[in-house]
């Protein structure tokens, strides 16, 4: 059912250049291409995970969709209407139904303002004039995210990391968004807290009819939470597909390496066979052709000739690798086996 829903957010050939400076008496700094020709659809009601290592451009992509970062090329549609190419204020206004939850929830709150005041502020900005109504809605939302409504009087530093995530969610949900961009919502949390936050995210999605763009580097969380996955490497999406299909039959060597590198409770046997070379590259020095070539266990000199495009390898499953068809055949040589990752689906909606 989800598969046929129309996209609520649609991104076409989006590129984002960051930084860059040409100044009087200053050394010019060339801009960095953080996102390159990315296309993706976010369907109403789904959880799409955007996965990649630091510096891959996943946060920049999220902020560009949100409208806080201006796109350099490409188009963004929200609910069928183009919302790209606007001035920053207009861009943000047109995308007010898309909201962003910061990775560091505590730092995203004004330390001088009580939680209640911060939460009510969003309502003030949205033109809710009646103070009593604001108070009621704040209390209601605090309860919805599992916090005591009386905590509205407290200040950010009095909350624990897990509670701060809840506060951040309450603040954003008061604005009645339809799409949430969640930036690493569980990073830095203890396992026991992480589980409760993920659970809350699933609950809130049901209750408020939300769509999530879930930015993460943690494949084990992604495997259990998301409907679809997009893997990013150096500004480009290198593989995308339904979560189960992608985890069962990862087609891009990078996806396989990511899956094998994640520490598993099962221990170290399979992982040790997999060669992982080099460090995550910096977007300031992107190589020509396939960006993954210098770390790729199966790369060939020919891969440097041109940038691989996303091609279908299954229904909805697409991969950007010159050797994708060949790689799919000699699976076992990488020591990664289907089903090695956590079972998908069983607990997703529990």
């Amino acid at each position, binding site marked *: 059912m989800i598969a046929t829903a129309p996209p609520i957010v649609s991104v076409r050939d989006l590129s984002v250049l960051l930084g860059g400076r040409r100044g009087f008496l200053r050394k010019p700094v060339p801009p960095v291409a953080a996102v390159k020709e990315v296309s993706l659809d976010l369907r109403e009601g789904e959880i799409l995970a955007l996965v990649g290592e630091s510096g891959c451009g996943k946060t920049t992509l999220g902020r560009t969709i949100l409208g806080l970062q201006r796109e350099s090329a490409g188009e963004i549609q929200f609910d069928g209407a183009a919302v790209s190419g606007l001035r920053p204020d207009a861009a943000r206004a047109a995308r007010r139904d898309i909201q962003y939850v910061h990775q560091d929830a505590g730092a995203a709150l004004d330390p001088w303002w009580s939680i209640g005041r911060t939460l009510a502020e969003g309502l003030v900005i949205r033109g809710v004039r009646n103070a009593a109504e604001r108070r009621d809605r704040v209390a209601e939302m605090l309860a919805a995210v599992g916090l005591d409504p009386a905590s509205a009087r407290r200040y950010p530093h009095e909350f624990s990391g897990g509670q701060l995530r809840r506060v951040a969610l309450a603040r954003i949900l008061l604005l009645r968004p339809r799409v949430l961009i969640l930036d690493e919502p569980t990073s830095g949390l203890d396992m*026991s807290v992480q589980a409760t936050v993920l659970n809350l995210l699933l609950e809130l999605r049901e209750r408020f009819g939300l769509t999530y763009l879930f930015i993460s580097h943690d494949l084990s969380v992604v495997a259990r939470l998301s409907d679809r996955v997009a893997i990013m490497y150096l500004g480009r999406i290198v593989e995308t597909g339904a979560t189960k299909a992608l985890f069962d039959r990862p087609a891009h060597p990078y996806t396989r390496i990511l899956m094998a590198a994640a520490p598993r*409770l099962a221990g170290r046997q399979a992982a040790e066979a997999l060669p992982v070379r080099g*460090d995550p590259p910096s977007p300031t020095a992107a190589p020509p052709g396939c960006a993954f070539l210098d770390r790729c266990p199966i790369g060939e000199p020919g891969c440097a000739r041109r940038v691989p495009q996303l091609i279908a390898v299954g229904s909805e499953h697409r991969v950007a690798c010159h050797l994708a068809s060949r790689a799919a055949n000699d699976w076992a040589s990488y020591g990664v086996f289907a089903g090695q990752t956590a079972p998908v689906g069983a607990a997703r909606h529990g």
Partner: protein
Amino acid sequence: MIPLLKVDSLKVSIRTDDGTARVLDDVGLTLERGRILGVVGESGCGKSTLIRAIMGILPKGASVDAGHVWFEGENLLVFSEAELNGRIRSSRIGFIPQDPLLALNPVFKVGTQLLEAMRWHAPDDGTRGRERRRRHVERLVGLLRRMQVPDPETALERYPHQFSGGQRQRLLIAASLACAPTLVIADEPTTALDVTTQHQILLLLRELVGEFGLSLLFVTHDFGVVAELCDDLCVIYAGQTVEAGPVQAVLQAPAHPYTRALLACHPDRAASFVGIPGRVPSPLARPAGCQFAARCGEAEPRCREASPPQARARSGADVRCVQYA
């Protein structure tokens, strides 16, 4: 044979503005020679205080109330600052910090910083002055090569920001081994790293333990990392060791309810996202009885009355729970 490191019912409290916090309340662990011991605990359980107590760098206002830290048969707690500096730190106990960027001074060359430490702590081999320094450079370059740092010859002449996060961590691992210690303590050395880099570092550590005849005390909050790297495991909750034993035994049959609950939260095991209700008790107000009782699904009235005794579970693990008494 005596173990390399044995922490014995260690109790540490820290005076704060709000009263005295009993941060470590009866922690015990044993690290045998040539093994990797994973110390697992959530934030606020006392992991970092434990490391500091072992290394003798407790913060101001902290005091050791009871217990011993036996290292190669000597009680480190009775050592003076000068003795620790001269005989223990770096030369016999190496340290790998959590954030490699914070551990390196950005305005000095990497080589300057690493050689400085060796000048003070490296064992005396009879050489002096330039000759000694030349030998130190030689050893460091060799270590960096072993750590797979690119261009090890020129690495010492570069500044910390010229390295990636993973390479910086390799530098610090090399630094921790520079004075040939027998014990290396690693404080969540991979949490700041990407997953592929973490994987490489874990493989490297595993190899180094065999190669250099080390023992490794690896502090982490991630059971997955423990499963991949460690031989033994020690779970800490609210300043107490609640379960300790061989990794495989504990992971297969976790005995303590807290270990079970924590493992059930791991995405590899979780049937659904449940978490553990409640919070870790504040070190300012420790409840009587079992520290975990308030959050434990299997708690009985007697759990809240007296501290549970140490017992042996069927898996062979030492566990602090009335169920096994």
